[in-house]
């Protein structure tokens, strides 16, 4: 076929889209090993991974939503709701509180998903409403920062499994689960098909609305879990500022990972790489004493580059 002999420029671009994130992470790691003092310290690695874990968990849900041509702006607020619920129900013990928080996330996700799937509201509008409303609700439940001393919850945020922080283990396990869900399950394949062509999926008898609803529920539950983990690490519930702007970090991770915003394709591992890349980038620039504003500018460049690579492929 004619496709086989693509011009070199196009091949480079296709390669960059497929493996660009991995290469970028590799280059940045190498740079740090060579030029950043104490970079190889175990403590440094731990800090970086613990910091990025909640973003990774939220991004997994975001990738699923974006795969359906949707977007979920409510994730940060759902995190704050989870933080508030945990603080309220901690009296019953850490695990019941965690369960309540996850149910809260599921309810928020159901609300967003129902608006999108059954009412037909555009995802950006539906989840924007939740972004505002859910944080308001969280602030009503817990108006100011509440510290806690529950040992189980604190352990969730700070203990380690054979040297690896529990938060990081959870994020890694969820990544594998999500990859399995997308690649190997009926649900995952249906999500991708709906994102690829909704009309065709409907005519093929896929339960389009149910799948869409479930996608937002999953995103909500993952955001709630991220909220609980972040709260556990902080050892305080802070609904006012927890998860602020995390939706932007999550969308960035998904986009930089090469998942097209036009749907029909979900790259789970690359999304995690996207989150790691952004984390590593800001850490690198901070270590080299560059101001925060520089980090933001570099991040913008990377986002544009990623979008450019994805776009070229899509319009072929």
């Amino acid at each position: 076929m004619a496709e086989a002999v693509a011009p070199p420029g196009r091949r480079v671009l296709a390669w960059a889209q497929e493996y660009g994130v991995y290469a970028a992470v590799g280059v940045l790691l190498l740079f740090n090993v060579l030029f950043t003092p104490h970079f190889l310290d175990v403590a440094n690695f731990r800090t970086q991974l613990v910091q990025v874990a909640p973003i990774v968990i939220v991004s997994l849900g975001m990738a699923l939503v974006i795969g359906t041509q949707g977007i979920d702006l409510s994730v940060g607020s759902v995190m704050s709701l989870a933080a508030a619920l945990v603080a309220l129900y901690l009296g019953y013990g850490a695990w019941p509180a965690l369960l309540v928080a996850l149910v809260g996330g599921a309810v928020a996700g159901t609300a967003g998903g129902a608006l999108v799937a059954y009412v037909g509201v555009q995802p950006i509008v539906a989840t924007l409403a939740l972004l505002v409303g859910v944080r308001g609700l969280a602030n009503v439940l817990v108006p100011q920062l509440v510290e806690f001393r529950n040992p189980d919850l604190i352990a969730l945020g700070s203990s380690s499994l054979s040297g690896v922080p529990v938060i990081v283990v959870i994020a890694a396990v969820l990544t594998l689960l999500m990859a399995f869900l997308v690649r190997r399950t009926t649900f995952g394949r249906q999500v991708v098909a709906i994102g690829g062509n909704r009309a065709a999926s409907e005519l093929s008898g896929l339960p389009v609305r149910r799948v869409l609803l479930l996608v937002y529920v999953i995103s909500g539950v993952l955001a709630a879990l991220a909220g609980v983990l972040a709260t556990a690490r902080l050892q305080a519930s802070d609904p006012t500022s927890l998860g602020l702007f995390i939706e932007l970090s999550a969308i960035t991770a998904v986009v930089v990972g090469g998942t097209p915003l036009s749907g029909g394709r979900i790259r789970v591992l690359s999304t995690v790489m996207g989150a790691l890349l952004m984390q590593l980038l800001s850490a690198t620039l901070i270590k080299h004493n560059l101001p925060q504003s520089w980090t933001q500018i570099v991040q913008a460049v990377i986002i544009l580059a990623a979008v450019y690579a994805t776009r070229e492929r899509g319009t072929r």
Partner: protein
Amino acid sequence: MSQSAAPVLEARQISKRFPGVVALDGVSLALLPGEVHALVGENGAGKSTLIKVFTGVHRPDGGELIYNGAPAAFGTPLDAQRAGISTIYQEVNLVPMMSVARNLMLGREPRGRLGVIDTARMYGEAERILAGYGVVTDVRRPLRALGMGVQQMVALARAVAIDARVVIMDEPTSSLEPREVETLFSVIRKLRDDGIAVVYVSHRLDELYEVCDRVTVLRDGRVAHTGPLAELERLKLIALMLGRDLDEVRTGGLTRFSRDRRRARERDGARPVVQAEGLTRRQVLHGVDVSVWPGEVVGLGGLLGAGRSETAKGIVGALPLDAGRVLVAGLPLRTGSTTAAIRAGVSLLPEDRKAEGIIPALSVRENIALAALPSLSRAGVVSDAKIDKVVEVFMRRLRIKAASPHQPVQELSGGNQQKVLLARWLAIRPKILLLDEPTRGIDVGAKAEVQALVDELAEEGLGVLLISSDLEELVEGADRILVLREGAVVGELSGDDVTEDKIMASIAERGAESDG
């Protein structure tokens, strides 16, 4: 009418090619001032391309456009509009949230001092203009609050008000009530008397004969006929549109043997596999009844816009219905749910393969397995072994040509994409297949293969509803044919009556409108 005979707009040997298709091939058309010119043709004939050349959306690859006696090259639609060529599309393209008056006067509002819009004058002027079209309404209301007919009239008034010399109307009556159609026609006649040239695109023959003076028939990008409409028999017009020569049409086909056998089975069969009763949808379907027996191929005939695709979509639950019900093997089907229809064994191969059929970025394998996924998985986890087996079976049986099952389906030819979609349906073993233009846009070889497959499936006892604009395909493939016109069944042909000219005669019958 009695003005100069020089054409106001003339296309001379216009050609337009798109990758892989010649949309227009040396098309010439002269538009006289003060005439209503019908432009007709089936899908893909080149009507919309020609209109887009007239309105500056497309630039012709060859030939020239003469406007007011001088060569014209419109760079953009705005250029054409400024020069006096206005288009009114099927869907009114105005601003629904703005008031009627604002829409009417958009871009040329009367201004007072300081350049502020003089609203009082604007409303007055708008009311006066609309009254000229027989529309009396509160021009302060937002446009969307009005009926489609009034919206269309506002669009028309706006087009004429910006000094149009040529007005192009693309299916203007498709969303109008009969009363509104009458108003529209009187406006069209008024335009004609004012010396404006009107291009009228429609598939409703009654309307064409009522309002048009001349007709140009396009077929496969060429002019098949042009001349006064009144002198042209309806049957002849349909023959021209469908590319049939009346004298050449012979009764009978070559593939009769299987048909007789199937008809015998139909009589024995206890009940139809699908029975649709009174399918109704405002403006589109008016009580369509269709039954298909197992092993029978039922053809739906009719012109574009007659409601054939809508009937199929109504049966499968993809088109919301106002009334009517569908029975599958005697059991009523929940309407409005494609999932329920597919579970009951009714599958639709849609007309628009790209928009409603394939999932372009997914592989051949995933496209085939899509509908059958639940049965190809265990506890929600897909089984690669099962999928591979099904995909292999159907790729071989339908002779799907792909580099590998993992090739993205968008890289395949149209014919192979169509086979992938057929495989998707066959993989779930339907009781009845609704095929909407199954061979459109695919090469001759694949076409023959698809036709043979349809025959074979019917032999195996599958019910098939076949929609095709290709009369030959319909006659050869179908055991029985229902002819639709304007959303209603107007004829049923079976046995020796299944011939091309009987179908055309049925389409051509004058609409028996009972005006009360």
